[in-house]
């Protein structure tokens, strides 16, 4: 789904270099299915992590969870998933397991990979060790676990999930243990003769005939059994064995009406629990045909099986929002609207920047048009997401970044309208691009459209408190960005008082917007807390973070009023305000859990500290230099 522009162009370069090798299949038999169109397959519905989603989203989620990316070897997640399900052997050598901590790699005695991703083939010899360490870690109190132990557990769970996926269509795989050695058994069961090795499902659908053979031996002693009967016993035992081993594997893709309402079951669960239900077994048969067609590379049969399966699911499943919007979710995945917006914001930034130095109106007009063009996919993406989820735009950390970015750009548009200059365009391009890029950092941790925990399950409060506080974040971040512009202008041309004043005015207004909405959001948070916990204010970290933004803005405005700081001081203060916002936004989340978790969060912590450090240096340097420059240019008496 996602590639940043830089990484995408890099990927092209890499692709060109590696083409001869990349063109070959990973190992062993070439997987014919790779060439198939998966259009019918990707719209199948899977129930996972508490919601129903198209197979395409399921594939992305699984792959994200394993590797932190949504592609493998430049192939989309759905292609990878189809191979895991239907030709599992072909995925043995794909490096999909992300291991963040070098000590985990060392503990498993594997040579370190530069990209920190390992294949199942590499992990396989180390599985007993991994299991031993992960089991020991899982017995510890969660607060006692070190980053290494958490990472061990995470990797182990991923390997488990991978294996579960690998075997979830195992009933469609040919297996020599189902080859009847006895001719009588083969003919009586009507098993495919000759070369073809039967699959579990071949045997299972003929289990009645097998039982017939067994029934004839009801009164025989073991010594009296004919070779055919012995073979029947063996086959029956293997079938039972497989059901026991795999009978509970995911993915849940068949709706069943039970007493307690609708539940979704996996094909293996149907085999294990409801083999007598002909309707459900017909569904499993479609899936078996699907897998067979995939392996044979037959597009037509593959699509037929998928269509029949989907038609039955559509008929049987309760028509709720998730079912109704599954097609839209697929569209949302395919369109990748935020990526499109990123590119357009990048172009907006460049053109807006150029227009600052150009005397021709046309450049500025074009940059404004480009900004509005970029807003279109951004807005459409947000709207589509809201429609699919039936929720306000902000439901998790990932979506806060997408929404804050949108609000910031909207504010910039207002700035352009009020001030009629290109400053807002540059700010729009920069904030749109940077915040959308940042949002990608947070997508890997959970399902970006995931269901909500009980305490957040309130559209009213999400729409009021969460939306307003993130609008506050947007205002304060944008004010910080404009603060940068102010300092830069002060360095380049401190004599241009008119432009300095207009930048300052924009900063003042945007910071005021930030304060207003940060305040409202904070107080609405208090009201929500009062409604659900019985107290308005409890000084907990998230509340304090929000309060700190309000305090910081209030300090800046009052300090300006008291003449403690001048316009440049306001600019510096707004820039520092970004740090305050980041502390409230992601920083406080790290306080509770961050000390012990690795990978995703520790990367965030490092990024946060790095940003703070660099920003402080830049601001201190820039502001001092700017102050010196204006002092040198304006005689002191004039000030």
């Amino acid at each position, binding site marked *: 789904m996602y590639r940043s522009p830089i990484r995408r162009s890099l990927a092209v370069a890499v692709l060109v270099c590696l083409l001869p090798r990349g063109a070959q299949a990973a190992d062993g038999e070439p997987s014919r299915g790779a060439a198939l169109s998966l259009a019918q397959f990707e719209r199948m519905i899977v*129930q*996972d*992590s*508490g*919601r129903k989603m198209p197979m395409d989203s399921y594939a992305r989620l699984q792959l994200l969870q394993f590797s932190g990316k949504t592609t493998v070897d430049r192939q989309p997640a759905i292609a990878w998933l189809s191979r895991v399900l239907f030709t599992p052997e072909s995925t043995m050598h794909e490096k999909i397991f992300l291991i963040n901590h070098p000590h985990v790699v060392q503990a498993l005695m594997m040579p370190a990979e530069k990209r920190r991703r390992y294949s199942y083939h590499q992990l396989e010899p180390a599985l007993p060790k991994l299991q031993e360490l992960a089991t020991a870690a899982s017995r510890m109190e969660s607060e006692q676990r070190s980053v290494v132990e958490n990472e061990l557990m995470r990797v182990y769970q991923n390997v488990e999930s991978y294996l579960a996926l690998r075997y979830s269509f195992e009933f469609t795989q040919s297996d020599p243990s189902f080859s009847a050695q006895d001719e009588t058994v083969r003919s009586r069961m009507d098993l495919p003769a000759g070369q073809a090795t039967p699959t579990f499902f071949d045997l299972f659908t003929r289990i009645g005939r097998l039982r017939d053979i067994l029934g004839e031996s009801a009164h025989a002693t073991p010594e009296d059994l004919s070779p055919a009967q012995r073979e029947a016993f063996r086959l029956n035992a293997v079938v039972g064995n497989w059901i026991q081993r795999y009978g509970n594997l995911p993915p*849940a893709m068949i709706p069943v009406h039970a007493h307690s309402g*609708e*539940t*979704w079951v996996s094909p293996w669960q149907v085999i294990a629990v409801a083999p007598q239900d002909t309707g459900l077994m017909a569904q499993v048969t479609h899936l078996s045909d699907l897998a067979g067609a995939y392996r044979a590379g037959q597009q037509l049969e593959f699509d037929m099986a998928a269509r029949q399966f989907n038609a039955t699911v559509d008929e049987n499943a309760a028509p709720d929002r998730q079912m109704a919007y599954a097609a839209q979710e697929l569209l949302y995945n395919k369109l990748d609207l935020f990526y499109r917006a990123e590119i357009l914001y990048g172009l907006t930034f460049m053109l807006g920047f150029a227009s600052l130095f150009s005397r021709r109106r046309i450049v500025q007009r074009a940059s404004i048009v480009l900004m509005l063009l970029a807003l279109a996919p951004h807005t459409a993406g947000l709207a589509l997401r809201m429609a699919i989820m039936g929720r306000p735009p902000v439901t998790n950390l990932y979506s806060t970044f997408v929404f804050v970015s949108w609000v910031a750009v909207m504010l910039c548009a207002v700035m352009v309208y*009020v*001030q*009629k200059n290109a400053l807002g365009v540059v700010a729009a391009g920069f904030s749109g691009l940077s915040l959308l890029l940042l949002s990608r950092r947070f997508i890997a941790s959970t399902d970006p459209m995931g*269901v909500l*925990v*009980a*305490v957040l*399950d*309130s559209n009213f409060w999400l729409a009021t408190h969460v939306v307003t506080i993130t609008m506050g974040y947007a205002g304060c971040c944008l004010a910080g960005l404009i603060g940068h512009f102010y300092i830069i202008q002060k360095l380049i041309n401190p004599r241009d008082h008119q432009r300095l004043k*207009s930048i300052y*005015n924009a900063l*003042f*207004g945007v910071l*005021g*917007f930030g*304060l*207003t909405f940060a*305040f*409202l959001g904070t*107080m*609405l948070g*208090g*009201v*929500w807390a*009062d*409604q*659900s*916990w*019985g*107290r*308005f*204010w*409890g*000084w*907990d*970290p998230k509340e*304090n*973070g929000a*309060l*700190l933004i309000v*305090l*910081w803005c209030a*300090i800046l405005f*009052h300090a300006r*009023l*008291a003449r*403690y700081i001048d316009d440049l001081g306001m600019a510096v203060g707004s820039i520092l305000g970004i740090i305050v916002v980041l502390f409230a936004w992601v920083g*406080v989340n790290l*306080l*509770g859990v961050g*000390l012990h978790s690795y990978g995703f969060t520790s990367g965030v912590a490092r990024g946060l500290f790095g940003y703070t450090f660099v920003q402080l240096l830049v601001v201190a340097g820039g502001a001092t230099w700017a102050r010196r420059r204006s002092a040198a240019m304006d005689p002191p008496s004039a000030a």
Partner: protein
Amino acid sequence: MARLLDKLASVKITVVLLCFLAVLVVWGTLYQAEHGLFDAQQRFYRSHVFLVWGFIPFPGTQLVLALLFFNLLSSLFVNTRYNLKHVGSVLTHVGLLILLAGGFLVSLHAKEASLTLQEGAGSNLASSYNQWELAFWEPGEEVAADALGRRTRRVTAIDAGSLQPGEAIDFGDLGFALEVESIYRNADAHRHLHDEGASSPPPINASGYESLSEKPTEKEPGRNLPGGVFAVKTAQGEPQRILMYGGDSGPAMVSVGDKILMGTLRRTRLPMPFTVALKDFQRDMHPGSSMAKSYSSDVVVMVEGTSRPVHIAMNEPLRYGGFTLYQSSYREMPDGREYSTFAVVRNYGRLLPYVASLVIFLGLMIHFMVVIYQKRPRGT
């Protein structure tokens, strides 16, 4: 006087106070990661002054907020110009005054407790999270039965939080005085192997504990189990030593004169003017996952012989008689019994912050709109 008011209303003071408040907010937040929310609240947010490294005094949040209140109040008399241009600013600051005053009122009167009920059970007594009381009563002296048929009895209870060793408390109407020998906020209780040559007899205790040792307090204040050893002194006879511990399995018995009294150290009770009985607790999961979608309890509220059913869920509390009950947590026993826990809050003036917030928001909106309108570029 006027000059003093001028000084007090100075915006420079405002900036300094806001800076102090910001420092307190950051410091207290970081402190929580190490010491827990409760300690941070006590040290930074409910205090007027606290000591850094044991000797440097630093203003606490209560003091800073009080000073801000007066700074703001006086600025409304001195610095503020009352005209159309400043409507937003005035509204904002008046709203802030209401907010600060409201916060102060709430902090004076608010009581927080919790009530845990098994399905089928009911009660009109919530108990505090972290406050404990010493309670004594005469067994058999039951007064009345409530709607559930539960007996009510007269109990003399005193707050155990502020007791100091050596202090004596008079339980006059029960006919004895209690002298504190030792008391700990958090303690371990010990049983000893019976020592034949022991010099003094072990203290009276229902669970067979003979001594206490102090423990560092928990991050989560509700987990502290306090305990103390006391001497029961009556008009006649030797003082009797009694050990009371938060983890006792039942009340201890002491004889006072010709009466037997029961005594226990328990979480402070908060009586409610109605009885709540739990009919059913439900937990809905997101399908096919182990993630809860919602929690809720069906309860019956009983007041003076009448009863009515109420559904309490997340974000849908029960408000009645000045009390509010929120769905807070639950416990499920392996045998299928379910317990539901409600946070019980008694809270006056809870609407003040709502009003204040709205006023401030409107004020800020108007203020910045006016400022932006004035700053707009004119006559291009």
